[in-house]
């Protein structure tokens, strides 16, 4: 992973998908996930097609499928409760391998699992092809208020610096014989957290001084107002545009 874009979810590459303007990818991914969520749960084939679509896009971006599949682990805690639905669901029941399961619960679990999995796949693909800086530019160009994007950008910039501060303080504690495992030592940890906060606060002041010194006058300057080309918008919209008729057909079948 190259130094510039190292967030853990990024997969370095130079594919057409990597080069797409970030705002087009953000919008396309958002629409795609909306369409997936709006699809009736009975249309198994539709979810199969959606998954295939995302994997095709991943192949186009030269992201190995295994890379995306490993990212799926993140959804486990969120969908864990879906596994309980078949057991606790009400209404009609079926026997599967001698266990009585609720039909409604099974549908509910499938619904959550399928939609979450495809949503996470699509998000992982977006994250794998978009650097942190690009995300910020993307949101900026989508007219997200600059106060929000600035806050996010400072967070991105200083997270590592503060984590480093924290690591040094931990090492300093340990060097003086401190093992933070016991509950009665939380006091020392609490104090470190306080000190960390003060340090971060002071850094904030110094950063502000440095900004003032370079002519900052209360709002972040707009830089590089290049907008995505129509071609880029069209390319990015392939995903939602192909997904939309799938969703529509699933609803027609339903009726």
């Amino acid at each position, binding site marked *: 992973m190259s130094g510039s874009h190292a967030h853990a979810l990024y997969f370095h590459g130079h594919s057409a998908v990597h080069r797409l303007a970030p705002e087009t990818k953000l919008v396309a991914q958002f629409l795609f996930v909306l369409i997936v969520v709006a699809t009736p749960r009975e249309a198994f084939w539709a979810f199969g097609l959606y998954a295939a679509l995302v994997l095709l896009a991943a192949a186009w971006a030269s992201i190995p499928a295994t890379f995306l599949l490993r990212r799926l682990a993140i959804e486990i805690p969120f969908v864990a409760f879906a596994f309980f639905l078949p057991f606790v669901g009400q209404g009609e029941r079926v026997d599967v391998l001698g266990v009585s399961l609720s039909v409604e619960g099974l549908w509910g679990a499938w619904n959550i699992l399928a939609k979450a999995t495809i949503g996470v796949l699509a998000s992982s693909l977006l994250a794998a092809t978009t650097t942190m*800086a690009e995300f910020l530019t993307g949101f900026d160009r989508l007219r997200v208020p600059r106060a929000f994007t600035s806050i996010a950008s400072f967070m991105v910039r200083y997270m590592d610096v503060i984590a480093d501060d924290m690591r040094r303080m931990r090492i300093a504690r340990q060097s003086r014989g401190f093992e933070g495992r016991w509950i009665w030592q939380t006091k020392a940890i609490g104090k470190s957290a306080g000190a960390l906060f003060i340090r971060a606060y002071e850094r904030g002041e*110094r950063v502000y001084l440095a900004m003032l010194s370079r002519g900052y006058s209360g709002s972040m300057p707009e830089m590089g107002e290049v907008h995505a080309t129509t071609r880029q918008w069209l390319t990015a919209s392939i995903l939602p545009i192909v997904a939309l008729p799938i969703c529509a057909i699933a609803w027609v079948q339903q009726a």
Partner: protein
Amino acid sequence: MTETIEPVTGPALEVKDLAFAYPGGTQALFGVDLAIGTGERVALLGPNGAGKTTLVLHLNGVHAAQAGSVRVGGLPVVKEHLQEVRRRVGIVFQDPDDQLFMPTVRDDVAFGPANLGLRGDELDERVVQALTAVGMEAFADRAPHHLSFGQRRRVSVATVLAMRPQILVLDEPSSNLDPASRRELADILRSLDITMLMVTHDLPYALELCPRSLVMNGGRIVADGRTAEILADEALMSANRLELPFGFFPAQAEAERADREARRL
């Protein structure tokens, strides 16, 4: 670089009788007087707590003068002129992590000129020029926290150069640098054709880069002269808590430098 001490073309920076006390009541400056000519490289030496940083923060109007005045290229540092003063005086702060706050090196270098209203190609050109001047043009798309400390210090210099300042003010430029990065930075600073004021505890660095030095102590300028002479003045040095590193002899270093420069020509 001329070796003259007297300003040749009128002062790039003029501080007259500047006094300042912090809101808490601690008086930091007790009437500072100094003038720096265009193109001069001057070191500002002095012990911790002498008021060096306080003085620096007056040069671009972060602190407003309570008594006395500061002029940059003839322009008084007052509220109406702050934007122009901040364009003329570029300050490189000690901790590059304070100076570099944007997600990429390119954005960070562009921040200053963008605040001056530059956009598009003109802005890009400034960024490339500034990064090239410090040898960091290949790192434009990197995130600052993925650079080495020395590289971050160089980018910090570029962020200020991009504003095309008339005076470059450096706060402890050699601190925390390994010897190679320290030398690389010296080469870069020497290559810049710009008036320079360098706050430093690194006396060999001052001698290497700055023909003239000011010594500050207790909120006043207590000495002003040729760096080699100041460093050789033992009484002055010890009175102001200045000490040369072990085994460093200013006269010998001066001779060596003259020799090296003669060979370069």
